[in-house]
């Protein structure tokens, strides 16, 4: 990031005039908008963001048939029902497995590939980069049929492996581009210094580059996790047995039931949301630094 910032600041005009006076305490600085210009639109947008979340929480906690706008008395019946009767316990475990496996595979494969793209010049590099970019335009949903046939040929229909593989493959291109940009931001001279000190390439990478990559890896890994946790069509297509299904498919079946049980749907939605929202809240800061460092623009 520091390298990039340095190049960004370089063309800034040299200031001949003295710095503007620092604002006194309580007064706003020159680069700050008036308070109401921040809080008013933000407040309105927050309402738009939070009302839907509140709504689903409300439906999941209040007894069936209640029209109160406050979930009181609180009941956890919907959660119990969804978790056991609607097998969300199983779905949850499957989704965790798919999410974690996709995260690990994507990060490892993208790390190897990203290192090659960042540190080496090789003959097919340009072609490979082009293939990565083009694959962004390939809609996963439209490849369902050939993918189904491939997995049928590999005897992987109805195994979570098929979903993990498909999710990983569709996460790879962007992850690899991001990781290679992160690695480019780590000065090569640091690695070379480690070699001179007697490390081989692998150890130099592990002790010098890897720690500096942490924000980037967190961004990429969490992306992979959240995407595979949320993605619906692959699981719907490749998994037939109920005990192999993932959470989004479970949610869909709650929605398409003949008479929708709103309480159950809301509870299922909360169960689906909690892991990703937690992951997100935790990594939010790294995500933005990760993005500005890894710069999707390349």
């Amino acid at each position, binding site marked *: 990031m520091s390298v990039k910032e340095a190049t960004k600041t370089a063309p800034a005009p040299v200031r001949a005039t003295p710095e*503007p006076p620092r604002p006194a305490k309580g007064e706003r600085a020159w*680069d700050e908008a008036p*308070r109401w210009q921040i809080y008013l639109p933000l407040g309105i947008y927050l309402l738009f*963001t939070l009302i839907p979340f509140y709504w689903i929480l409300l439906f999941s906690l209040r007894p069936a048939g209640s029209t109160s706008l406050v979930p009181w008395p609180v009941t956890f019946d919907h959660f119990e029902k969804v978790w056991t009767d609607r097998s969300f316990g199983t779905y949850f475990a499957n989704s965790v497995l798919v999410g974690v496996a996709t995260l690990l595979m994507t990060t490892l494969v993208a790390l190897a590939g990203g290192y090659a793209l960042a540190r080496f010049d090789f003959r097919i590099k340009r072609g490979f980069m082009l293939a990565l970019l083009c694959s962004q335009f390939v809609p996963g949903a439209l490849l369902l*049929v050939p993918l189904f046939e491939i997995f049928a040929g590999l005897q992987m229909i109805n195994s979570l492996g098929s979903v993990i593989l498909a999710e990983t493959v569709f996460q790879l291109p962007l992850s690899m581009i991001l990781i290679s940009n992160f690695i480019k931001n780590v000065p090569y001279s640091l690695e070379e210094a480690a070699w001179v000190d007697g490390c081989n390439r692998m150890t130099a990478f592990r002790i010098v580059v890897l720690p500096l990559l942490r924000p980037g890896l967190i961004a990429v890994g969490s992306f992979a996790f959240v995407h595979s946790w*949320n993605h619906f069509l692959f699981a719907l297509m490749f998994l037939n047995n109920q005990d192999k299904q993932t959470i*989004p498919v479970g949610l869909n079946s709650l929605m398409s039931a003949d008479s929708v049980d709103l309480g159950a749907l809301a509870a299922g939605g909360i169960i689906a*949301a909690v892991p990703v929202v937690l992951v997100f809240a935790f990594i939010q800061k790294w995500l933005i630094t990760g993005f500005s460092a890894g710069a999707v623009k390349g």
Partner: protein
Amino acid sequence: MAQAAAVAKPPAPPRRRRASATPRRLPYLLIAPAALLMLGFIAYPVVSVFYYSLQNYNPTKPWRNGYAGFDNFVHAFTEDPVFWDTLVFSAKWVVVEVGLQLLFGLALALIVNQTFVGRGLGRALVFSPWAVSGVLTSAIWVLLYNSQTGITRYLADIGIGSYGTSWLSDTSTVFPAAVVADLWRGVPFFAILILADLQSVSKDLYEAAEVDGASRIKQFWHITLPHLKDAIILSTLLRAVWEFNNVDLLYTLTGGGPAGETTTLPLYIANTSVDAHNFGYASALTTVAFVILLFCSMVYLRLSKFGGESK
């Protein structure tokens, strides 16, 4: 362990290791796993979609299977009114969604880029729908739009709308209702990408502009917007492709209904292949979708002169 011993030896003379030379096969080894996965699960399926598009291929009607030439394409363009409807709706959906997301996303990013009390929490809250899936978004908005207990009921209480209307099953309201639901999680995505780029604008530029007496609006037009140009172009393009391709939300929110009113081309393709098992026809439609995507993104990149200069 041997390594640890080697490090422990104090006066280890700096030796030139194999590592510092550039091994010729190493980069190929490193990209091999990614390349193989992508060949097998993206490139090969793409090719087979092109192949199937020229076939009659329907597992439920195997007696008709075989080479079909361009029949599937001819059928789509001349005999299938649904195809044209889905094309029109796809265009409408992408333009409206991406346009509004860009507008609101930019505004939101500019706001949360300011320093203010509670910024961290504010950011976390307004960005949180980004983490939510298409299916979950549908679930949430199905609850909100529910005709009996949804927000419509409470709006009717204060005189907006009427009881018992479901915005998702009425052809006149389903489009805005779906747009709003998708905006809910689409705006944060845009805002995050733009915010990431906003943070790399040099403060010096603004200070200099301030000293020169440029107004905030002028600063926005002449400093912020030009700086954000590439990020905006790329995120708009990515988002447009994504909104076009995404099936999760509409599939579960409206199922393409009422009366096919919200069926995008990819949704039609999914229905044709998954429900109707007409794989040959679905592949032909997929090919059409590819060509459209490719064409639009090339035109867009050319018009915006993105990537014109070598990076």
